[in-house]
């Protein structure tokens, strides 16, 4: 099934390159949903996600000649989208930093504690665990991750991407990427601790 899609994608790519613009439509319609889910999880809102989707398919079209026919178009456009989304996240962080003044530094600064931004939102443990509240908290925690951490956890958890694939998007090596995934999980875990972990001694103790 996946093979059939890939084969039919390859034909559409060849037709597009041959000058049949409408052949590209097939590719757009077939892969929009997947790219959208990635984009939404990365960007956290619909408007930016839709922007990322459009821009990704535009870029894929413009770079179509560089696409090696034996690769999978779905994977390829997915990677373009991940690359573009992480750039947008970085841009967003810079914009926010500029608006808020020098206190908040750029991405990946290890000292940035997402809890400091999330804690205000956390309800007392007694009120906890309404799943809507938890979802809000997770949303805020994801937003507080660095662009690299967010990309890593989205690609690893939801889309099951391999470390090498994520490392390519992060322009990093696999050890550092594993570390990024780990840090992302750790931060998310601390953010949701008030909701689920009554017995937190150990969770908070391993903080390093």
């Amino acid at each position, binding site marked *: 099934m996946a093979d059939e899609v890939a084969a039919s994608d390859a034909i559409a790519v060849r037709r597009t390159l041959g*000058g049949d*613009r409408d052949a*590209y*439509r097939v590719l*757009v*319609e*077939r*892969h*929009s*949903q997947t790219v*959208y*889910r990635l984009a*939404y*999880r990365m960007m956290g*809102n*619909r*408007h930016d996600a*839709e922007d990322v*989707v*459009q821009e990704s*398919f*535009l870029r894929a*079209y*413009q770079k179509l*000649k560089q696409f090696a026919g034996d690769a999978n178009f779905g994977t390829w456009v997915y990677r373009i989208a991940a690359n573009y989304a992480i750039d947008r996240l970085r*841009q967003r962080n810079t*914009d926010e930093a*500029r*608006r808020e003044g020098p206190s908040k530094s750029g991405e990946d600064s290890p000292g940035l504690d997402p809890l400091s931004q999330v804690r205000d939102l956390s309800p007392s443990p007694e009120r906890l665990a309404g*799943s809507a509240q*938890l*979802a809000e908290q*997770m*949303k805020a925690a994801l937003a507080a991750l660095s662009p690299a951490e967010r990309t890593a*956890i989205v690609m*690893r*958890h*939801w889309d099951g991407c391999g*470390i090498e694939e994520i490392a390519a998007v992060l322009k990093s090596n696999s050890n550092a990427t*594993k570390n990024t*995934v*780990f840090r992302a*999980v*750790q931060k*998310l*875990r601390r953010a*949701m601790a008030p*909701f*689920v*972990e009554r017995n937190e001694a*150990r*969770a908070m103790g*391993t903080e390093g």
Partner: protein
Amino acid sequence: MKHRTEEELIGYRFGEVNERMEIAAHLEECAECREELARIETVFGALDAMPVPDPGEEYGRRVWQRIAPRLGRRRARWWESQFAPQRLLALGGVVALLILAFVAGRWTKPRIPVRDEADAAKVRERVLVVAVGEHLGRTEMVLMELENAPAGKGQKPINISLTQRRAEDLVEENRLYRQTALNEGDQAMASTLDELERVLLDIANSPEELTPAAFETIRKRIEAQGLLFKVRVVKQGLDERKSNPDAKPAENKSRGTERNKV
């Protein structure tokens, strides 16, 4: 017995540790680490519970409609058409000027003292203000053309192909300015340009021949969003900035941030 670290357990969960067998063996006999792993697992459960709003079955078609006019009407490689003489003309010398100003700004940055850098930023902003002002002028014309077009009689279709071609050119121009405004941190301008881009795309994406009813729909939408009015307000603000470069319209700014929350 030495417990496994959080890092090892997370790596184990993802299947990415070297000592997979050893950790598995430890988990067999250590209830505490099993519990720890279960607690880690709740993170993934919570992530899975996060909804992604369904963009709808028609989403792929909508994406295509949005990007199709931007793919260009050509067989040539994109950069050939991008830099074709008439395209440059359509984008206007202003854009070239704008790019020059930016390149010049970047180029000299490392060496010039702070004061000059501030001046360079001012020059860049000024060029942007002028260029966007002219762009808005052209956009205003397109919107006005649509607003003032004679109402269709009966079922006779209305042809908007000329206006459409202008809208298509403006879309590209608009994206360039929006990106520039974003880079310059001018959120208010970026979000107004963003609104405009949507409408321009709508116009560019409509069929050439519209039924009077379809035409009315577009016109109503432009009116409902008060776009012509917004364009004029921003344009006026820009004109003021042109004559008084230090003034940034405050009212404009708040509107921008408000929209950005959405």
